[in-house]
């Protein structure tokens, strides 16, 4: 399986990248871990690959006042081993599930967002945390919330001439706890169903805000405010009836050979209850240690 011929360019600056993308015949090449298989299977035949890895402005990850900002050329494995990324615990929880080590050494965080596979982990983390995606294009720069960035299966708010410049994940605050779980056929495969949770507690320890994102269950990550679910109780057991009902509404994938809709609903319901309750426990721990 060989890619059809394409031209290749590796610009030095962001402006040059945008100039190469102008016209719409170019395709961004970041880590290539999703794009190259597409080319190899001749599912796509872009005229030019615009390699963004030589642009210094895209090559670093930094902690800023509004969170952890990851440039478009920063690889997943670099973030995985970056002590500064601990500011966002969910990154550390989700990253081992993004493909395999050998893929994370090339794949980028922004590339995963831009590719927007419905079963991918990082777009779900970005949605649950309300991360901000920075775009640059012919119309200038703009910032889009992750939940609005992903518009469907492998579809995003970025147009063919746009570049995802960075994504900023909000840093964890005191009294915030997280949960992450997925079920895949084999470690490193895309999830059959997965959930990401963020639970906030007030000074008294009561839940003030809870958010849940499901992935692998629809054409895009599905995010819900689930604060009200805790009204029935706090344990996994207490939460189960409500998460089962939520699964009926949220899981709308048609199912495939690896799992029917019903199976995925059940997975989602169980994982959601477990990770919400785990998120709450951690939120209380963090409130105490903070």
């Amino acid at each position, binding site marked *: 399986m060989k890619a059809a011929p394409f031209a290749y360019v*590796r610009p030095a600056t962001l402006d040059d990248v945008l100039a190469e993308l102008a016209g719409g015949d170019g395709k961004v090449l970041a880590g290539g871990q999703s794009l190259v298989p597409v080319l190899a299977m001749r599912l796509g035949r872009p005229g030019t690959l615009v390699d963004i*890895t030589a642009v210094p402005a895209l090559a670093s990850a*930094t902690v800023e006042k509004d969170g952890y900002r990851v440039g478009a050329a920063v690889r997943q494995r670099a973030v995985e081993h970056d002590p500064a990324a601990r500011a966002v615990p969910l990154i550390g929880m989700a990253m081992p599930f993004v493909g395999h080590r050998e893929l994370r050494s090339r794949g980028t965080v922004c590339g995963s967002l831009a590719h927007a596979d419905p079963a991918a982990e990082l777009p779900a983390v970005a949605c649950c945390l309300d991360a901000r995606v920075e775009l640059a294009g012919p119309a200038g720069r703009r910032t889009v919330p992750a939940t609005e960035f992903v518009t469907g299966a492998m579809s995003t708010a970025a147009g063919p001439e746009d570049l995802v410049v960075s994504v900023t994940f909000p840093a964890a605050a005191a009294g915030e706890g997280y949960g992450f779980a997925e079920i895949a056929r084999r470690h490193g495969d895309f999830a059959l169903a997965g959930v990401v949770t963020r639970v906030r507690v007030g000074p008294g320890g009561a839940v003030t805000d809870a958010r849940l994102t499901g992935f692998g269950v629809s054409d895009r990550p599905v995010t819900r405010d689930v604060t009200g679910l805790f009204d029935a109780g706090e344990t996994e057991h207490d939460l189960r009836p409500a998460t089962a009902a939520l699964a009926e509404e949220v899981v709308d994938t048609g199912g495939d050979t690896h799992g029917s809709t019903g199976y995925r609903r059940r997975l989602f319901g169980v994982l959601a209850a477990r990770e919400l309750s785990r998120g709450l426990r951690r939120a209380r721990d963090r409130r105490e240690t903070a």
Partner: protein
Amino acid sequence: MTALSDPVSSRTHPAPRERVAADETVEIAMTVNGTEATVAVPPRAHLADVLREQLGLTGTHLGCEHGVCGMCTIMVDGQAARACLLFAVQCEGADIVTVEGLGTPDDQHPLQRAFSAHHGLQCGFCTPGMLMSSYDLLRSTPDVTAEELPEQMSGVLCRCTGYRGILAAVDDVAQTYPDGVPGPKACGHRTLVGRGSGGGSGAGAPAGEIPAAALPEQVELPSGPPSAVVEVTSTLRSPVDRVWTVLNDFDLLARCLPGARLTEVLDGDRYRGRATVALGPVKLSFDGLAQVVERDPAAHRLRFHAQGADAGGSATRADVVLAAESGPDGGTVLTAHADVHLTGRVAQFGRALAGDVSRRMFEQFAASVDEAAETGSVTAPGRGAQLRLLLGTARDTVGALARRGLGRLRARLRRP
């Protein structure tokens, strides 16, 4: 704003590159197993193909070519990566280690020894990928536990399910080296046999002719172990001084080599020529350069280096020593020793086959030398004629030669 710690910012990011057109070929310089290598590639050539076809490093296997199976796993800038998901054009300045760099048959890496001790090899197809993935794991996470191994090694698939042995081997090495497994043992300077075009990936040299510019002025021999060592001893009827006359006349000598033709005599005892080999569906036409590096009339010894490249992506280099000694009944014992380095399609025959073909050629060569020594010229197997080597007909060939009364051939093939 806090600048980031090393792992993120110090990852090698390549220098910019001007647009390369789809049908264009560019030169990419990288370090492969400790040696500088420059390859000429079209943008769409992936690294695994380039390693295999242009650099002869066929240890990197290909299964799926879309990132799923892990067969092609190699180290790029200190981290494991899929060579099939990386275009060679992206690798300017990259530091690459393949399974060939991990260890040699004589000096294996601890992982290689452990794979064999724990029966982690069945058919061996996944072995290079497993070795490179586990090497990456033990370099980056020396304290990995046995429980974590199935998950950590899940990036490479073994199709004959040798997993238990493989995991036992990796665990053994992890425990033996708690502070990190030793580095690659076979990285160092050696000449990689490169080629000037994009291999089977479309663009590149037009079929047929190799541009003359692709042939260097001097033959440079690789310093790594040869693909095959061929040693043939033949007893000839002609006396040793007559045989030496043939060996000393490069034009006549070339005509004795089946399928070979001298095209140009250069200064410095250098010769350009062409050799054609046809083997079943394979037809290779090598344009080459030979350079005599030693002529010893007293010892009747001739040594030359030869180099040839085929438009289809095969290359061969050889260090050849021919020595004639007085034999029984006034005849001559002619010994030919050749260290043969093969890359490209021809190397994919496997060593045994490649060595076999080379040996067969030397047997026919010896017969022709005898004929030339006797008559002053060569007929069969034909000057300039294309050599047809039919596999499995060694006995026929020897029988035919014997019938023609050209002497008794004794051949021995050693494999490195």
